Structures are given as structure tokens and as C-alpha cells.
């Protein structure tokens, strides 16, 4: 048991590192600005293209599709090395992590030939159009309608929580094609052109003040039947392929507690009984946070070890986000409580630490919801890892149009 690379891994790491040294763009760090990151889009695309040409984009994908033809452990090592450089934001993650793998698994041959390579090379960006106002956790409750009209389909409805819709070229759309059958059977998957008439993207103003997500409205959007991904009525099966990939992407989790920052704050702030760092209540919390954050870190090491040995990682990687999101929220809340009345100040010049903990406090609720809520993730652990039965589904055998919607 050790943390060392095998000779093969060490050689790959050295090669990746020297390539990054020679090629990674030099760039000043800039604050995250949500939707206004389009200024860096050119840099992001250029970096993605450079990686693709060297075989470092989509490392595990076959070379015939523009990937690196490599192994999972290589992908992990490259990501570790890349994270040590100041590379541009990655707007390709959703497309390459979820949408394009779905096209590769389920899509028609001409779709694969049309879309995979440009996505790998950063020329085209994808977004995922699943969640709706009436169905987030219950994604199969999608109401956006697709109605057949000759060789076309006509789309009307609304999607929500769509990351990157405003800069995406294409979207993977889950739509209701038959409301007269039970909900899982009346869905069909399509790809759409996000710049087509009939698609309107509106940013969502988040509670944090940032806008990382959008609403997407469809008004008589007309698409070809050839834009269908999988069979008519097969949309839920296709969506499961996408969501499987989402869990792989989101599952890692990690971070959440920055005990160094808390220790620093606690060594500067006083409570009524003395230095906060000497407060036993706080010390116990710091210990609890530490074992959660470290536990997550070493859980990812276990996952990487399985990949390194050419094995399938165990289900333990599923615990990442459910732990890290609440951890981030707890740490932020306690840190601000320590600052007492100063905790309300957002100006980083007046209260440098409280400002950063405020950011964490205001982002944490989103982390506990996005990519599967805490509750859904616990259901998944219970059902897929522990093998407990699904909950009773009242809507399972009812025609979709007859399911109560609560509004």
C-alpha cells in the first residue's frame, strides 16, 4: 500500500507533465464571473484543440473518433497534472462528459461522424436539456412536447437549469412524444441546433447573484426526424445512458472543507472565552470536518487505485457530492458565526475571510441540488449499492396525461 506511481504511470505522468510545461497557456487567474466568461472562450477552444491534437483530450475515447485511445488511469493522471497549470475554463465538460457519449452509444452512424470529432476538438459545445420546471429529480416527467409533422417534429415547451445553453451549439433534448402512455414510455431523445429559430435562452439569476444556468424556451421549433437519437418512445432508455455518465462525472466530489482557512480564521478571532482556536466546540467541529474531507480524498485514491489496477472502481465513489456539499455549507456557516456581527460584511477588503465564506455559503445550496439532490443520491446509494427496493411509483402505469401534476 503506497501512493506511488507504478513505473508505467510515472513514465506517463512525466510525459504529460513535460507536454503541459511546453504547451499549457500562461494566463493570469481571474475571478469566476458566471455567464460573462465568454471572453475566455477563445482561449478555452484553443486549449482544447491543442490537447486533442496531442491525444490528451478524451484520453479514453478511440482514436478513430479523435480521442487518445488510452486507459482510464491515464486520464486521471493527466487531469491531476493539468490541474497544476493555470488552464482556461472548461466549457466542454457537459458535452464530452454526457451528451456526446450518448450520441456515441445510441446515435446513428452519421451523427457520430458529424458530431464527435468537432466536440473533442473544442469546435462545438453541447448542453443537456432534461430538467423542466415540473420535473427535476423526476426527469421522466418532462412535458416539453414534440409533435410529428411529416418528416419533421415540432417542439414546444421549456427546459430549466441548463448549464452553458447560452454558448452551446447543440443540445440533447428529452421530449414528450406520446402523453397517452405511461411516462417512461412516451419520451423520445433528439439533438437540436441551439441557434435555430424557436430556441430562446434566458439566464437564471441565482441566489448567489451569479448566472451559471439558463432557462431554454421552445416555440414551434421545427427539427428533422433524422435528429432523433434512438427510437421513438425510447427516450428514457437513452436518458439513462446520459445520466450514467453524469454520475461518473459528478461522483468524484471532494474538497468542501478547507481546514487551513478555518484554522487561520480561528487563530485570529476571539470568542467570549478567548481565542476561537481554543474553543472546544469549534475544535470538535474541525476534527469532524477534517475526517470527512480526508475520507473523501482517500476514497478518490481508492477509486484511482482500482483504475490503476485495471479494475472497475467500487461504488464508494458515489458518496462524494453528498458529503462535500453539506460539508461546505456547515464550514461556511460556522466560520461566519465565529466572525459574529462582522460575518454579514461582504466587502473582501473589510472582511477578507468572511467574504470567501459567504461565497461558499451562497453556492452550497446549489451544490446540494445540482446533478442529483442529496435525497436522490441517497436513494441511488440505497437502491444501486445496497440493493433496497424502489419506492412505490404511483405514476408508473398511468397514462402521462392523467398523472396529477399539482398545478
Amino acid at each position, binding site marked *: 500500500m503506497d501512493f506511488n506511481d507504478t513505473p508505467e504511470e510515472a513514465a506517463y505522468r512525466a510525459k504529460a507533465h513535460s507536454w503541459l510545461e511546453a504547451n499549457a497557456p500562461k494566463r493570469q487567474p481571474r475571478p469566476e464571473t458566471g455567464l460573462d466568461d465568454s471572453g475566455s472562450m477563445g482561449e478555452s477552444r484553443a486549449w482544447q484543440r491543442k490537447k486533442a491534437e496531442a491525444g490528451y483530450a478524451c484520453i479514453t475515447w478511440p482514436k478513430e473518433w479523435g480521442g487518445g485511445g488510452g486507459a482510464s488511469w491515464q486520464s486521471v493522471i493527466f487531469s491531476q497534472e493539468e490541474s497544476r497549470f493555470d488552464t482556461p475554463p472548461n466549457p466542454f465538460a457537459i458535452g464530452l462528459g454526457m451528451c456526446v457519449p450518448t450520441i456515441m452509444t445510441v446515435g446513428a452512424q452519421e451523427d457520430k461522424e458529424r458530431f464527435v470529432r468537432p466536440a473533442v476538438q473544442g469546435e462545438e459545445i453541447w448542453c443537456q436539456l432534461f430538467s423542466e420546471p415540473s420535473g427535476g429529480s423526476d426527469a421522466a416527467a418532462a412535458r416539453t412536447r414534440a409533435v410529428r409533422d411529416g418528416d419533421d417534429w415540432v417542439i414546444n415547451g421549456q427546459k430549466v437549469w441548463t448549464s452553458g445553453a447560452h454558448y452551446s451549439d447543440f443540445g440533447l433534448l428529452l421530449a414528450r412524444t406520446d402523453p397517452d402512455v405511461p411516462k417512461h414510455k412516451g419520451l423520445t431523445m433528439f439533438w437540436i441546433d441551439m441557434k435555430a429559430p424557436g430556441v430562446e435562452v434566458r439566464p437564471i439569476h441565482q441566489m448567489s447573484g451569479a448566472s451559471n444556468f439558463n432557462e431554454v424556451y421552445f416555440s414551434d421549433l421545427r427539427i428533422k426526424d433524422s435528429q432523433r437519437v434512438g427510437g421513438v418512445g425510447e427516450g428514457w432508455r437513452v436518458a439513462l445512458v446520459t445520466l450514467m455518465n453524469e454520475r461518473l462525472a459528478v461522483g468524484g466530489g471532494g474538497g468542501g472543507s478547507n481546514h487551513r482557512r478555518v484554522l487561520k480564521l480561528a487563530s485570529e478571532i476571539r470568542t467570549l472565552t478567548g481565542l476561537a482556536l481554543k474553543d472546544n466546540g469549534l475544535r470538535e467541529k474541525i476534527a469532524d470536518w477534517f475526517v470527512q474531507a480526508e475520507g473523501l480524498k482517500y476514497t478518490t485514491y481508492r477509486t484511482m487505485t482500482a483504475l490503476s489496477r485495471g479494475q472497475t472502481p467500487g461504488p464508494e465513489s458515489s458518496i462524494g457530492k453528498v458529503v462535500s456539499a453539506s460539508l461546505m455549507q456547515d464550514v461556511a456557516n460556522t466560520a461566519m458565526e465565529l466572525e459574529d456581527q462582522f460575518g454579514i460584511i461582504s466587502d473582501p477588503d473589510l472582511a477578507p475571510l468572511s467574504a470567501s465564506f459567504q461565497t461558499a455559503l451562497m453556492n452550497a445550496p446549489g451544490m446540494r441540488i445540482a446533478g442529483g439532490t442529496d435525497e436522490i*443520491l441517497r436513494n441511488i446509494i440505497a437502491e444501486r449499492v445496497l440493493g433496497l427496493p424502489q419506492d412505490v411509483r404511483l405514476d408508473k402505469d398511468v397514462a402521462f396525461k392523467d398523472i396529477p401534476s399539482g398545478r
Partner: protein
Amino acid sequence: MNFDFSDEQKFLKDEARKFLDARCGIAVVRGVLDHPERSYDEGLWKAVAAQGWLGAAIPEAYGGLGLSHLELCVIAEEIGRALAPLPFSSTVYFVTEALLLAGSEAQKTKWLPKISAGEVIGCFATVERPGALDESQVQAKVESGKLTGAKIPVTDGAVADLAVVLAKEAGHPRLWLVELAGAGVTREALETLDPTRGAARLVFAGAAAEPLGETGEGMALAQAVMDRAAVLLAFEQIGGADRALEMAKQYALSRYAFGRPIGSYQAIKHKLADIYIKNELARSNAYYGAWALTTGAAELPLAAAAARVSACEAFWFAAKENLQTHGGMGFTWEVDCHLFYRRAQQLGLVAGGAKAWKERLVGQLERRNVA
């Protein structure tokens, strides 16, 4: 990255499980629970010695198998899983580790082969009063090689042959080896929360004591022993916690209420998912502890504290929520939930409770932040 046990170590773990499944069914545990005059299973102890487990991490020169502590970790997990009613941790994690850390050549040559062979049971006697162990509570003292004072509770003290005792010499703490069959030792078995892991009060009135390690380093040495024991105990705790989760799951699948398995209700599913999460975090922290223990890394005090805090939390949570999942049946003597509930507390306190270890963890963090 190689942050897992090897195939050979996993094979050893499988073999240990098969052995304990065959030799240490729950009836064996209850055989001790239901007979207060017994505090461990003598037959199982002999069988475990024959397997070589007692000397797994003892060098071959001293009659052991000469394996690493990683092998001991996988055995510990299976011992914990089986709730084995044995003085294993006292003998192997505490006394053997103390001898390996601080024993003279003569002490190691005298005791380690006997421990390996199952001929000597050990116990670790430090505490004298309620509350976390610190120097101020050590009243026991040695003058001219004679120990006086009392230690309570001493896990396995009623059946041990050899004690490692923390006592002062001219006001300075030191560890001592004491043969419990000798003159000047009286012992009294205690009633304890987990009767499958007995404990005693040891009273010394001029008992012969031989120094183990240097004078003045007693507290540091005792803590070093507890760091090592904490990692190994964490594996026992994880073994118990995983089995408690399996029990809860089996019951949730087979018990019906309101026309369906209770495991289909989110109240139960989320509870069991939370047990799983804590168990996996504890396992990951324990792996880091195992790495630090085996490599002798400077991180051991921090890694041991993290492993212990995480494992105490996991086993306690798994044991209490397994019992809760069983409803009224879980509150009966016949159903096994309380065996895990008792053992979770026993293991959670035997090397010092989580509260003290949290303090130790943060102290280590402060030291590193300053450094």
C-alpha cells in the same frame, strides 16, 4: 497509485473470514455473553494462535510470522466483523506493539514468542479514574522495582498474564512490565457494558515491575502505543460497522409494514445510505492510518487520530441505526443488534474516546500549521 491492500492481503482476509465464519458464529459470542464467569472463548483463542494471527506482525526472529501491519489490519477487520470474544486487541495491538516499540532485546526474546504461541495474554493498564488519560491521573508508582497503586478498568485484566502498566518513578511517568501471576497483585473482574470483552480492576501492592522504555517517556510511549492500536481498532470497528449495515439491510428487505418491505421507504433507505457513507469514509481514513502505521510515517499521530474519530463515528452510527431499523425486535435480548451496540461502545472507548482523539487531531493540525 496503489492505495489498497494487495491480492495476497485480500486473500488472507477472505481466509480469515471463512475461518471465523466457521469457528466464531454468533453462538460463540453469546456463549461468553451469557456466562459472566467467562470473559473470552479459550478454544477460539487457541485456534487463532494456531493460525499464527497473534504473531502476524511479530518478526520471525521472535517466533512470529514476520508479516507487515497491513496483514494485521485485514485480520483486525475480520475479528471486528465476527465480534470475536477474544483478548486479541489487548495482547496484539497494545502489549505486542509496546514491546516492539520499547522492549529490550531480552524482553522481546522472553515475551514475543510466547505471545505468538498463544501462551501469554497481555493487557494495557493506564487509567485510574473517569475522564481522558493524562499525567495528572497517574498515581501508581514504582519504588525500588516495586509497583503500588490501582488501575481500572483494564480490559482483559482478569485473564491476562502480562500487563504493561503506566506508573511514575520519582514523579516521572514510565511504562512497566508486570507479571500478573506474581506476588502483590490482586484482580477483580468488573461488570462491563460488553461482557464479551471483559475488564478488571488491578491492585498492585509491591508487585515486581520491570521498566519498559526510559523514565519520563511514559506518557509519550503510551500515546505512541495508542496511536498504533487506534489504527488496528479502526479496522475492527469498520468490520463491525459493515456487518451491522448488512444486518440492517437484510431486515429492511424481509420485514414488511403497510404492505411493502420497510426498505422501500425513504426514511429507511436514507438511514442506510448514511451508514454506508460513514463506513466508506471510515474505511478510507483507516487505509491512510494503515499506510502510516506500516511505513512508520511522521503522519502517524494525525492519521491514527483521523482513523479513530472516523471509525468511532461509523460503528456507533451503524450499531444504533441497525437497532432502530429492527424496531421493537432490536430491543430484545434474542436479536443480535445489542451485541453490536455494546461492542461499538466498547471499541469506541477502549483506546480513549472520540472526544479526546478529536482534541489530539486538532492539536496535530495546529502543530503542522505552525511548522
